[in-house]
């Protein structure tokens, strides 16, 4: 059986509330009262949504969505912008990659490494555009944060930057 995305997402939310509820049980009454109220209510609503998603009770909305999609496809516009699980995972990878490079090499170096990589591989931009854009972003960040605001950005594990 293929697991639906909304079931998984609703399930994750239900799990977050449930874990938070059990964690709060260890605290004194005054500290746990408010979180327990929230998590209990959160579990009720997310549990309801999981139930709805599993049983397919939100079929009306799905039907409406399907008819909208059909109309969009007919206009020929949406076909170019179809979101697939693969494209979503690819984008999550790109985002995580930037954060990972930033945490290791710091923001200054990661901008130089990542932006050309992203623009060439994802955007298929020309080297000229890549060069101009990378330089423009780097210089803007440098002027705004280092020169004007005088704040130091994270230098990564190797502390590559200015203090």
């Amino acid at each position, binding site marked *: 059986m293929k697991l639906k995305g909304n079931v998984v997402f609703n399930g994750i939310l239900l799990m977050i509330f449930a874990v938070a509820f059990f964690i709060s049980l260890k605290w004194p009454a005054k500290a746990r009262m*408010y*979180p327990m109220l929230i998590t209990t209510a959160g579990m009720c609503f997310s549990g309801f949504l999981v139930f709805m998603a599993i049983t397919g009770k939100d079929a009306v909305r799905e039907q409406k969505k399907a008819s909208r999609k059909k109309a969009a496809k007919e206009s020929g516009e949406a076909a170019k912008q179809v979101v697939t699980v693969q494209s*979503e995972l690819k984008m999550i990878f790109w985002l995580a990659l930037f954060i990972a490079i930033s945490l290791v090499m710091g923001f200054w170096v990661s901008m130089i490494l990542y932006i050309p990589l992203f623009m060439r591989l994802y955007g298929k931009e020309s080297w000229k555009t890549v060069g101009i854009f990378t330089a423009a972003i780097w210089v803007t960040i440098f002027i705004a944060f280092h020169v004007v605001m005088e704040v130091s950005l994270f230098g990564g594990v190797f502390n590559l930057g200015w203090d």
Partner: protein
Amino acid sequence: MLESMWVGLQLVISWKVMGLMIVATFIGNFFGAVPGLGGNLALALMIPFVFGMETFPGLAFLLAMHSVVHTGGSIPGILFAIPGTGPTVATIIDGYEMTKKGQAGQAMGAQLAASAFGGVVGALVLALFIPILRPIAMTFGSAEVFMLIVFGMTFIVVISRESIPKGFVAAFMGLLLSTVGLGAHTGIGRYTFGQLWLWDGINIVTIVLGIFAFAEILSLGAKGRKAKIAQVNIEMTWAQLWEGTLAVFKEWWLSVRTAIIGCFIGIIPGLGGDAATWICYGHAVQTSKNNENFGKGDIRGVIGVETANNSKEGGSLLPTLVFGIPGSSGMAILLGAFLILGIVPGPTMITDHLDMVWGMVWVMVIANLIGAVTLYPLSRYMGMLAFIRSSLLIPCIMVLASVGAYLIRGFWQDVILALAFGLLGYGFKRWKYPRAPLILGFILGELAEDYLHKSLGVYGFAFLKRPVVLILLAMVILSLGFTIYKSYQDKKKARGAVA
């Protein structure tokens, strides 16, 4: 009162604040004109830039930017039928039709003048309400404020009309996040997992950057890179722009009415910009003579929508400032920024910081005028922003959002946290969870717990018997009941339509 008004004006009229406001209006217009970006993202990305600033200049910068987002947002809508922001969709109906008829200049002129006019009226209504609300706000104690917060939370339901349970889940997630850190009344570390950096809780900016900025990056990127800049030729002369501008004053009674309606809709937390623009468009159609041209390029359609679009911001600032209850998701983010800048919204704003409130009124007036005036020569080119490729936008947003997440507190862990919120925000977007309730829940959550403990400490459970509390409780029940009933009716209609 007059003295505070004068002091407020003096706060605004300085080279530094005026310069910042000019920059802010350009940024606001830019974020408005690029579809998919919008005001919330602009605020999220720009909050880190105000860290080192003094309180008022920082405030003026953010407020000016937020005030003009919809002015820029209507440009691609009128020129290419691509709405820059959600509430500007209604402008397309007549605005784009006018462009097709070769009247883009008139539509643009009317849009810019109506936006400025609406923004100024919104700020004036805000100013008008200050003396009225002052005595009311002063009678509110901790119990009344707590119930008012609960009342504010019921608007979560209004925001989430499409799916009330999803709205509640988002709101409870926000409330849960607000409990992270050392409890103010107990000193117990909650959900800190032994991590020192979580003792102060999670910063609103980290959440906003994740939920909006990172989620938008994922959403934009997953759609693939967009087409190249379209080759469009839009004829627009100064005479046409002037003609459109004059139309706003010729239709002055419609402009005043829709601006006031928009402002009042803005005051009601959660109703949002879409409601304001559509209601005002409907009002313009219903109340205008010879209304057969609406939908076919009637300039009154543009005027009605645009005045409401900007005036509602003045209205939504009112509950945000006076009661600490954000009137919209943008105001919820702005509320977080206020706290960062050392301003604590609430009844004390109009008792102790009235000059600052007047300063904000002036900022809204001046920003709306600057925003519109600067767009007259630039509007044609601003429209092209709608066609910026995602492969160029994503790196800019990604860098700014990551740097912003780090700079809030100087913890690298916040960058990872923002990424996690980005995934959550994308999930919300993907499966149609409203994101605004999460922000509203987060902001009101800490306040609610604080005032609940205070009320229990002072009155015990007897605080529920206080007269104002009882009135507010009745309003909570009525508001919830009415919205749930309305939603049930809408669903019934939808089922009927599908069948």
